[in-house]
């Protein structure tokens, strides 16, 4: 913005220009004064450290995105730091603490779900035939009252594992082993 030549301006323009200058100065000094106070009283954040962290992060993203770096290999097929390899489904076998049967580790959760009578499938079973279900579950399974299925109405849940849509078929009258 060029400095107006005061001789050529009317006094009106001169005055408004002067006011503008005052307002601008005032705003600048407001900000400067606040910042000065913060800096002088030691209230400011450690900007150098923060910038260093940002720089390292940006650099990291560039390095990781570069295809020439071997990058993280898929965790399931490498040797771990102790020199061990593992199958993609954990194959340790132990006894289920609910029913006592030996179960493969990688399949323990789905087994336990049925074993304890919990989960979606168990609830589906229960609603299909109420009397049959009552008979089944009154025979000593530990459960109970199912609380209502908490689905993603609770916000901010990130899930893992694939969502299994299949529902088992039941033939009439046969008892399902838990």
């Amino acid at each position, binding site marked *: 913005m060029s400095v107006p030549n005061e001789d050529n301006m009317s006094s009106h323009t001169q005055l408004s220009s002067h006011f503008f200058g005052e307002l601008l100065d005032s705003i600048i000094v407001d900000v400067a004064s606040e910042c000065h106070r913060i800096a002088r009283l030691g209230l400011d954040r450690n900007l150098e450290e923060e910038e260093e962290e940002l720089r390292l992060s940006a650099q990291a993203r560039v390095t990781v995105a570069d295809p020439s770096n071997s990058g993280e290999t898929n965790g399931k097929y490498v040797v771990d730091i102790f020199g061990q390899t593992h199958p993609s489904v954990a194959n340790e076998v132990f006894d289920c603490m609910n029913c006592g049967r030996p179960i493969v580790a990688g399949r323990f959760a789905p087994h336990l779900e049925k074993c304890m009578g*919990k989960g979606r499938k168990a609830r589906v079973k229960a609603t299909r035939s109420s009397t049959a279900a009552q008979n089944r579950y009154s025979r000593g399974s530990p459960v109970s009252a199912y609380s209502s299925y908490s689905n993603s109405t609770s916000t901010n849940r990130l899930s893992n594992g694939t969502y299994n849509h299949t529902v088992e078929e039941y033939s009439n009258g046969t008892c399902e082993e838990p």
Partner: protein
Amino acid sequence: MSCSDHTLLHSQSENGHDIAVDIERSELYCCSCSDQVYDLDFDKVVVAKNIVDMPSKTRDSVVDDLMRRSSKRRRLNSVVDLDLIRSKFFVWMRGRRAKSCYPLGLRGLNNLGSTCFMNSILQALLHAPPFRNYFLSERHDRETCRKRSSDQSCLACDIGVIFSAVYSGDRTPYSPAQFLYSWWQHSANLASYEQQDAHEFFISVLDAIHEREGKERNPNKDNGDCQCIAHRVFSGMLRSDLTCTTCGFTSTTYDPCVDISLNMDTSSFSSVDVANKSVRPNEDTGRSTLLACLDLFTRPERLGSDQKLYCQNCQEKRDTLKQMSIKRLPLVLSLHIKRFEHSSLRRTSRKIDWHLQFPFSLDMTPYLSPSIVRNRFGNRIFGFESDEADISAEFEIFAVVTHSGMLDSGHYVTYLRLQNQWYKCDDAWITEVDERIVRASQCYMIFYVQRMLYYKANEDLSCAPMPSRRDPFVPIAGCC
């Protein structure tokens, strides 16, 4: 009284008249120093004058605010230190038998069927210094616990078992089956073989430990300062200020919390960028940072006109300003990033996949209540705040839980920092990774511990010197 032109002349002509007052801003200027200067008494007068001009009830609340001293100062538990000594001995004993030169406590966890949400949080808990020290020194007595309640499961006992197993020196992956069983008994509504949220699991575990331990340790039912291990380690206090926009009256409430859930700053790119079409509205511009999220969390928020709150001073409902701040920091600070976005319009939910930058060293000072409140009063000096400073606000990161994949089907992995080396814990697989991988990862929960505790913890785990640096991107096989 003079304008800026005369100020300098006046101080030169008159002796001892060096101080000038900026009456617009209530600031002092020293002509000898040629700089703005600050004085405690002057600031007190300025603040006092502002208070006097307020309506009486507002004034009372403000004075309460300013005069409030840090009440129960949290002593860095001497009990925590005792745990540290005991656990050091334990670790040293085990260390002599350990078969590898990697830190103790590094052990894979088998995935029992979509349980990576559980494994990822367990890894973080296994390496949270004060939590670890407590369980390694066997402060939770499994014998007495079992006697007290024979058939009820105790998650604290089961966690104790996991600690023993993971720190035993055995490196074959461990199956936390008993723990899963106990947890499903406790959290019936979450008991199913399907998608689960790691954060939900985290809260649920701490809650279960509190339920069990809380009863024995807090016979007076004093919930304000619960002594159970979950709260002693993870619990902090949040402060919420509600200010009436009409009269300035502020009401303050305090709530304990075991973690802080942060919204991502979706407005981090300017509208100019969007207008110029250089940035599409929902694109990751690479500018989202953890500090921006914390700024957002502590920013004054104008509650909508449909959310008017009752003001005691005005005696009616008014538009309100709400501001959060941290009254007391926990020993372990757990930050949860809300990556879930729910659009009520389209009735869809999606995951926000953007990268969020997070620092390895974090200074929480700007988010503490004294900083936030002081800022509200123009950063005037209050002499009686100095006793807040001895509680450390400096933290070091020790674990990051990351999520990759879609909302309904994804995978959790935890990165742990032990003695300045990062390890990736992907269910049964433990590998070494370069810190750059961690920085570039998509964080979901970030765990920080107070700096002093971090340094102490990393002394314990020393063993034989680490293998020399190699290509950081190749996982390293065990050395012995």
